[in-house]
C-alpha cells in the first residue's frame, strides 16, 4: 500500500465535493458536499499519520470530527429557520438575509 493511494482517494473525494458545492442549489446537498470535503482532509491526515508512524494526525481527525458535528448542528438550525421563513431550501430563494 503506497501513500499515493491515499492521495488518489482524497483527491477524488475533494473533487466530487467541490463539484457538488458549485453545481447544487439545494442547501442540504451543499452540506453533503461540505462533509465530503472534510472527509477528504481526514483521509489525508490518517494517511500521513500512518506514513510517518505518528499519531498526531489521527488526533487531529478527532478535532475535525467535532468541528464537523458543530457545523452540521448550527448549519441545519439555520436552514430549518430559513425554511420556516421562506418555505424553500433553494439558495436562489435566500436573497433576503434580514428580518
Amino acid at each position, binding site marked *: 500500500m503506497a501513500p499515493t493511494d491515499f492521495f488518489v482517494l482524497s483527491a*477524488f473525494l475533494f*473533487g466530487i465535493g467541490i*463539484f457538488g458545492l458549485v453545481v447544487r442549489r439545494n442547501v442540504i446537498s451543499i452540506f*453533503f458536499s461540505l462533509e465530503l470535503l472534510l472527509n477528504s482532509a481526514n483521509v489525508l491526515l490518517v494517511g500521513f499519520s*500512518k*506514513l510517518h508512524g505518528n*499519531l498526531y494526525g489521527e488526533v487531529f481527525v478527532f478535532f475535525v470530527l467535532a468541528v464537523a458535528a458543530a457545523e452540521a448542528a448550527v448549519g441545519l438550525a439555520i436552514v*430549518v429557520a430559513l425554511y420556516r421563513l421562506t418555505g424553500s431550501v433553494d439558495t436562489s430563494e435566500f436573497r433576503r438575509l434580514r428580518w
Partner: protein
Amino acid sequence: MSEVFFYFFSVLSIVFAAVAVTSQNIIRGGVALLGCFVSLGAVYFTVGAEFLGIVQVIVYGGAIIVLYLFALMTMDLASLKSEPFKAFLVAAGGLLSVVTAFLLLTGGMVLTKDFKPSISGAEDLALPMFFKFLLPFEVVSVLLLIATVGAVAIGRRES
C-alpha cells in the same frame, strides 16, 4: 489481503460520494453519503486506524447523517424543486474539481516511501490526546457546547 479491502472500499466510497452529490432525490443522496462514510470507516480499518474507523461510523454515520435526515423529515419534501441542469455551472464545477484533484495528485506523487500499517487503538490515541493535545480537547468541548446552545437558539420558534 487488507490491500484488496482498501481498494474495494476506496472505490465504493468514491461511487457513493458521486451518487450523494448528483442525486436529485435528497433522501437518496443522504443515504448514499451514509454509505460513503461507512466505507471510509472501513478504509481506516484496513490501514490499522481501528478506533478512528469506529468513531467515523458512530459519529458520521450515526449522528451527523441522522441529524440531516431528521431535519429533512421536518420539511415538505414534495415541495422541493428539482434543480435545472445548468451547463455553465456543471462546466465550471467540473473544471474546478479536476484542477484541484490534479493539484492534490501532483503534490502526492513525490512520496515514494512504502509503509506498513500499524494498528492504533483507543489506548494508543489516548496518550497524545490527553497530554499533548489537552488544551485543544477542552476547547473543542466548549465549542460543542456553544454549537448546541446556538443551534437551539436559532432553531427555536418565535413565540
